[in-house]
């Protein structure tokens, strides 16, 4: 492979990767049964793969199917391994690398959205400013009293990052993010 390998004293080789890591989004369709998530994340920790974001929920109740969306980082070689290793898990039906698929469709990346709940507390000028900015970000107020707001914001991860950064000096109390939900554009399913 392209990896530059150093000899070690144990006949194991320490590989220095020369390929550049990429961030890809994978969709994994699994049987919704106990332990299936543990199998998936156990694979990632056991083989030293990265998880940047993980989202899971049942999507087809009558078929007992769940869809797991994983954002991961790795070299193309590692990403290919991740896909094949996931496919070996018995309750896994399908694994689609949405990023690769979007490239095949001539698009830069798949559609990715994240939802966040952002609690901001304060009074006076800061409070007014928070509400004004939330409006600019199309975040909606889902709870409020005279001392706080809870905003619900949906969008790309970068948009939510930006919103949180702006809220920080305005009395940010806590954040909850769902992780990335993703699918490819166009009429075809995964």
């Amino acid at each position, binding site marked *: *492979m392209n*990896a530059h390998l*150093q000899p070690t*004293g*144990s006949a194991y*080789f320490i590989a220095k990767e020369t390929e550049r890591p990429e961030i890809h989004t994978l969709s994994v369709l*699994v049987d919704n049964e106990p332990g299936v998530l543990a199998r998936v994340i*156990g694979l990632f920790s056991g083989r030293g793969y990265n998880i940047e974001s993980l989202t899971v929920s049942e999507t087809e109740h009558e078929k007992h199917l769940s869809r797991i969306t994983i954002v991961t980082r790795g070299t193309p070689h590692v990403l290919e391994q991740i896909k*094949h290793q996931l496919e070996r898990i018995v309750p896994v039906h399908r694994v689609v690398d949405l990023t690769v698929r979007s490239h095949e469709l001539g698009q830069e990346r798949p559609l990715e959205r994240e939802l966040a709940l952002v609690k901001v507390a304060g009074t006076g000028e800061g409070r007014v400013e928070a509400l004004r900015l939330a409006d600019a970000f199309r975040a909606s107020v889902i709870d409020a009293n005279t001392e706080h707001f809870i905003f619900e914001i949906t969008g790309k991860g970068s948009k939510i990052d930006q919103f949180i950064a702006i809220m920080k000096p305005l009395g940010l109390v806590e954040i909850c993010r769902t992780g990335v939900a993703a699918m490819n554009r166009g009429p075809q399913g995964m």
Partner: protein
Amino acid sequence: MTGAEMVVQALKDNGVKHVFGYPGGAVLPIYDEIFQQDEVEHILVRHEQGAGHAAEGYARSTGKAGVMLVTSGPGATNAVTPLQDALMDSIPLVCLTGQVPTSLIGSDAFQECDTIGITRPCTKHNWLVKDVNDLAAIIHEAFHVATTGRPGPVVVDIPKDVQFAKGIYVPPQTAPRTSYQPKVQGDLEKIKAAVELMANAKRPILYTGGGVINSGPEASHLLRELVDLTGFPITSTLMGLGAYPASGKNWMGMLGMHGTYEANMAMHDCDVMVCIGARFDDRITGRLTAFSPNSKKIHIDIDPSSINKNVHTDVPIIGDVGRVLEDLVRLWRATARADKKALHPWWEQIAKWRARDSLAYKMNHDVIMPQYAVQRLYALTKDMDTYITTEVGQHQMWAAQHYHFEKPNRWMTSGGLGTMGYGLPAALGVQIAHPDALVIDIAGDASVQMTMQEMSAAVQHEAPIKIFILNNQYMGMVRQWQQLLHGNRLSHSYTEAMPDFVKLAEAYGGHGIRCEKPDELDDAIKEMISVKKPVIFDCRVATLANCFPMIPSGKAHNEMLLPDEATDEAVANAIDAKGRELV
């Protein structure tokens, strides 16, 4: 039907004749059912690890699934080593574990452990049965998953209340779940591309592995046919020995770290490599950047994750080795003709490498050389119905180098995990499957003490296994690495208090033999063969012999250390200082 009855019924319906196990609180209902029937025979071991390795030996020598039955908690945790061993070597192993009653799960009950959590990474799949009505279907699915696709270990964890509960038994179903559909038929276009590449090869090599043996006897048969048709030289991994007969004229011996010079040189210099059911393990490839730099590589494997994992493949063929070989042989017959003349220069080169006689050793007339012991054992047992198991270490490599296999399923060794203590219980499992065969564990003095207690199981079940210990009083392979890498500082690799193996054999109710002189060896081996009960053979061998040839760490296939070059100085300098720093 109760859950416990279902377990026994499901075993019968899946063709199980023998179960290796150890009772305990959480499996007592199943043991009660086993007691009341005689279709399924239970083999009582002395430690759950022994049950697992025995079931592995049973599986490897028969091609059927091995079955083990253990209790909850420590029973399950003791099963972990054989489960991982079976995972690494792709051995079909069905492990049934008892569990505390469902109402107590999670309460830190007596002998409770998270069996499913602990065994998740060391099984192909595992199940916790929560409803007795799911039990039968789960056991059937467990057998299906263990034995199909790339075979492997599975665990079915059965809480005690489920064993008592009554429910509906369902017979084995034919339709497995939709998410598990291993691809067995290779892509015909890829196979065509492989045939074309092979037909134009000038310096080809077949590199085969355990996948050929796992695929069944037909795959080995087809492999032999392929070799005859193409005239290609063939080498094999440790796991694949016996798929092609060692007496075959195209055989080059095992490859890899302790493989033959000709096999490794041919791997390095070949122009087309056909990898069949092997996985480019690090013991095989040596330094990856220097691995067979000028060859096109064809890789046949049932597991897509094996493709391109360590080595880039030009023509990947995903499918069962037997099915793919069938197509490959058929297409070769139809479209290609072996130009055996064109291979002449390649065979001449191989003959030159072979002339180095890389497995040679200096014979000694006062002390038994370990290689000589294996050679004599081979000479005196090769015409019998013989099965060989091993432990892990120098003796294992000497056995692989000097014992020659003509048939598949005759060689049981722990390849991937390298489990010391594998061989003795594995021999027990093999003997149970083949009661009239000669089953020999070629052992090391250190390894064999890890599972020595199974001698007692062998005596109980009248399994006349032969434990042939190459006793050098060292953990020989550990010492060899200390000599290579750690300035000959032999830290804890010498066993100062060695038991008297002859007395030990007698204490267990077996037969003990000791041999210290080369000229007494043949008679002693004949005595071992003739004794119809378990034998421990204490073969005292040269204590400081090392295992060569060897690819030292960080080196390539063409940088082997050969026995005639392995002076003390060469050994000390085999791995450069930079390599040592990186440990």
